[in-house]
């Protein structure tokens, strides 16, 4: 569950784990940003800030490799992305709920893990759901849950899927105060074990430290 085991391969080198340089992106006719660059090492996190429409989500999608950049380079473990290694090390949670409404939270977690080829037993999955405050909800179809609870089902993947870098796009939206604090704790724990995170938000985040990038 910790990032440490996955990280071991990366130690003893002088390159940074994640290195982004000269990134440019346009949507249709509009140029969103040019020459965006940053780097992250284990234990660091990046706060991407900007107004609505500044291109935060676009940057996240470029970063994880869903859309191609107009220019620039993203290197993970000194290899250009998207690589199989990068996808193994990455969790990306976007605006979408990314859970199946007709399945229960438990089924969602187990099937997502199976699709990713990651071993996950039921006890572990249940423990993750309990930590996210979904005790007693694990066998209800997601359809009947509230928006915030659906979000929590998605966030449970952070606990069930080992990864080094978390890319979370507006992950704090639709969460109540307790859940915001919980997610902040999860991110802090992840960073403490040598993980990395890239977060977008236009509000201050309940995570200490962090680099900032303003679009």
């Amino acid at each position, binding site marked *: 569950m910790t990032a440490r085991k996955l990280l071991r391969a990366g130690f003893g080198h002088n390159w940074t784990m994640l290195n982004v340089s000269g990134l440019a992106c346009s949507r249709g006719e509009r140029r969103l940003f040019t020459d965006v660059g940053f780097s992250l090492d284990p234990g660091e996190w990046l706060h991407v800030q900007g107004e609505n429409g500044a291109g935060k989500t676009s940057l996240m999608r470029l970063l*994880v*490799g*869903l*859309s*191609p950049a107009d220019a620039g380079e993203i290197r993970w473990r000194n290899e250009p992305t998207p690589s*199989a290694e990068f*996808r*193994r090390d*990455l969790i*990306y949670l*976007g*605006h*979408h*709920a*990314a*859970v*199946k*409404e*007709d*399945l229960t939270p438990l*089924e969602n977690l187990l*099937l*997502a893990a*199976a*699709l*990713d*080829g*990651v071993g996950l037993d039921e006890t572990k999955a249940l423990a993750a759901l309990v930590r996210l405050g979904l005790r007693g909800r694990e066998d209800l*179809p997601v359809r009947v849950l509230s928006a915030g609870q659906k979000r929590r089902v998605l966030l449970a993947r952070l606990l069930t899927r080992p990864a080094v870098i978390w890319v979370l796009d507006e992950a704090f939206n639709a969460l109540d105060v307790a859940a915001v604090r919980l997610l902040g704790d999860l991110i802090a724990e992840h960073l403490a074990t040598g993980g990395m995170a890239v977060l977008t938000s236009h509000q201050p985040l309940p995570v200490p430290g962090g680099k900032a990038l303003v679009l």
Partner: protein
Amino acid sequence: MNAFLATVRRDLLLALRRKSEVLTAVFFFVIVTSLFPLGIGPEPVLLKKIAPGILWVAALLATLLGLPRLFSADHVDGTLEQMALSPSPLGLLVAGKILAHWLLCGLPLVLLAPILGLQFDLDASTLGILTLALLLGTPLLSLIGAIGAALTLGVRGGGVLLALLVLPLYIPALIFGAGAVEAHSAGLGAGGHLSLLAAMLALAGFFAPWATTAALRIALE
């Protein structure tokens, strides 16, 4: 390989929770084949002659009915995005989805065809060839259709466009599938037709998931 089977299991489980969507395609198949005698007239000789063609065209259209849903539900709720970023190769997951589509939309048609063939007074050996041809042909329809479904994902008027893209590509399957039954009825033997169907299935099984994956990545950009 586990991820492939997990995708199949997942899509079957989802279909089980929404039975009506699968059943619609099956009922459509039954109704369309039953409409032809009403339109043409109950002459047994004529109906027997055109039965393979009718069953094949109906199977073509019934498969088409389920195609727009193949990726759109996963696209809308964001799970397709997660699949594209999964450590498992997307091609493998896509292949799993196509197999699940065939099990849900193709296999029921294969199993129903002999029963519907009885309506057209086909004899046992002809029914056997028809079933065999559909068994080889319907996976081909699912594979080719998946490319069209991926290309029209999230596009305006996707459903109608999908039919326009996919139906011309279905023609060889239709010709050899219905041709196998006709050749058998004419005493020529269906072996050639069936081997060609199998060859096309092998070709599509290799290339279609690949093309579908490429189209999906474009749709997600």
